[in-house]
């Protein structure tokens, strides 16, 4: 048995508030969360004969519930992602307002910018040669074409180190949070 027709607006209103509070998470993830919450309420009402109000009460305040999903998901996603935007979101969520977070974010942005500069340098070298560009007279190239693979490799290495250290920081924050809870 699914919740009666009269109870549906109450459930939908509650789920609507959760949806609003989950804004920013991927649509598919939000739909899945809401489907599970709806299933929980239907189960309590249908199988255990609980009232709709009591079933919704077991989930707690919709905004608080959404917040419980949000930081965890953002932090977990950041730890598994290569996307700089998602990692930055994870850093933003981790240890809010601390000097450590600011330092970790600054180091990550610095590492990422260095990678971009190195890759642009490699690209410029390739483009300069294809346009027939040569070093100014009297100047001597130290690395020549070697600058391309070296810049690409160094850029990749710096990106790898920046990603790893940012993820380590986010993970460390989660562990310290867990320690506080215990």
């Amino acid at each position: 048995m699914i919740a009666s027709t009269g109870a549906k607006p109450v459930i939908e209103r509650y789920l609507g508030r959760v949806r609003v509070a989950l804004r920013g998470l991927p649509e598919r993830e939000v739909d899945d969360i809401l489907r599970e919450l709806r299933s929980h309420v239907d189960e309590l009402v249908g199988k255990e004969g609980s009232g709709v109000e009591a079933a919704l009460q077991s989930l707690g305040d919709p905004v608080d519930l959404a917040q419980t999903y949000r930081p965890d998901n953002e932090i977990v996603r950041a730890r598994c992602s290569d996307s700089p935007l998602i990692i930055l979101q994870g850093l933003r969520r981790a240890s809010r307002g601390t000097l450590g977070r600011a330092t970790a974010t600054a180091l990550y942005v610095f590492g990422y910018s260095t990678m971009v500069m190195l890759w642009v340098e490699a690209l410029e070298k390739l483009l300069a040669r294809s346009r027939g560009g040569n070093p100014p007279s009297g100047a001597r190239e130290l690395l020549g074409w070697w600058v391309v693979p070296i810049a690409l490799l160094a850029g990749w290495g710096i990106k790898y180190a920046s990603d790893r250290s940012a993820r380590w920081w986010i993970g460390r924050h989660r562990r310290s949070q867990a320690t506080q809870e215990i």
Partner: protein
Amino acid sequence: MAKWEVQLRKGCLELVILGCLWPGKLYGLEILRRLESDSDLVLSAGTVYPLLSRLKAEGLLKSEWVEADAGHPRKYYQLTPAGRSRAVHMARMWARFSTSLKGLLSPILKEGGK
């Protein structure tokens, strides 16, 4: 309930969810009822569902929607191989920790019981 007891219970949430799912797959409400019947832990649905979502995102659980006879679908969770090995590791750590305290606690329990 004393604050330290609340913190102790919070600290073992992940282990008890993995423990619940050790024998096989369960859906959210079954997990809640299993916790109530097999342990002293009475958790709210608002705690368990986000935790399941996090454990899934960490690759410790996988889930599937199953159309139930009840007329609505149920989301079943089960341990992944990574989840099983995490459960074994955590259970061993917990048992070791608990054993290591035995020497300290047994005189208290002995004399406190008098």
